[in-house]
């Protein structure tokens, strides 16, 4: 009995240590994604520590739990998180199978499904930052904005902030597809256009269902 209890405690300790190690690596990668996104995402595409995307997903879940208290007549946070997970895996599966369809047999071994999970998880950072900051601003500076001097100044700042995060997101998204699929520029552009062909109507459908006003991807 004492021996079983020891094994149980040891497993818990290992899980805790793995979780905290992954958290430190996530923070490190996050900082490097700001300073050198190209080299960092290239390295991330070779990662095998599955606690990292799991930790990022826990962060996203905590965000949805936080936002549940701010929204008017919201769906349950777990339901929204489930929809997010479905969207995430639909995106990854789409790009993965499109890559396998385009690619020759030579590169088959180099392209892995888990590489897509890692790179696309890390490309969630700009999305998470924007949604979190907008939620916090909703508490401290609730809309509507006025046409006073402060209102205009804030509007300019908010648009610049949103644009910066959008450009960062586009960079990380392109690099995620580039390093996970290992395709050239034209093929990546073509894959992104094919992705938008179904993703835009799908996002509009989710908007009408009042699940996501702006796509969380």
């Amino acid at each position, binding site marked *: 009995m004492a021996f079983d209890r020891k094994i149980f405690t040891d497993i818990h300790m290992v899980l805790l240590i793995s979780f905290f190690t992954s958290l430190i690596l996530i923070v490190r990668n996050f900082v490097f994604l*700001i*300073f*050198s*996104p*190209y*080299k960092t995402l*290239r*390295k991330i*595409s*070779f990662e095998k520590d599955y606690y990292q995307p799991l930790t990022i997903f826990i962060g996203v879940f905590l965000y949805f739990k936080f*936002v549940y208290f*701010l929204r008017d007549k919201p769906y349950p946070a777990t339901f929204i998180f489930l929809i997010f997970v479905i969207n995430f895996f639909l995106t990854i599966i789409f790009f993965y199978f499109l890559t396998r369809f385009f690619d020759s047999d030579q590169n088959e071994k*180099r392209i892995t499904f888990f590489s897509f999970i890692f790179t696309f998880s890390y490309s969630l950072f700009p999305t998470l930052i924007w*949604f979190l900051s*907008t*939620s916090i*601003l*909703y508490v401290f500076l*609730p*809309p*509507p*904005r*006025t*046409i006073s001097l402060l*209102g*205009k100044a*804030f*509007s*300019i*700042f*908010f*648009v*610049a*902030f*949103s*644009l*910066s995060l959008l*450009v*960062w997101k586009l*960079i990380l998204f392109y690099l995620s597809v*580039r*390093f996970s699929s*290992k395709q*050239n*520029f*034209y093929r990546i552009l073509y894959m992104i256009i094919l992705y938008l062909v179904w993703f835009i109507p799908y996002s509009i459908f989710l908007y009408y269902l009042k699940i996501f*006003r*702006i796509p969380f991807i």
Partner: protein
Amino acid sequence: MKTFEYRIHKKIQEIYSVEPNDLGLGILTNYYKRFTAYLKTLPFIFIIPLSFVFAFVLYFLFGKLMVRLVTILQYGF
């Protein structure tokens, strides 16, 4: 203990994991490499000032409509 040669080998494998982009035309490839060089390292040095410039231009073009856009975006989460 990982040797220096092992680490170099891993680094080279990582660097050559993707082929360099070739846009077909030399001039296109040249402009692509020049443009992406700014985005590969410290992109925010260019992104943040350009975003502010673009935001100011949007404000001068659309004025009150931009304030309304921000109101809509603030409900976007």
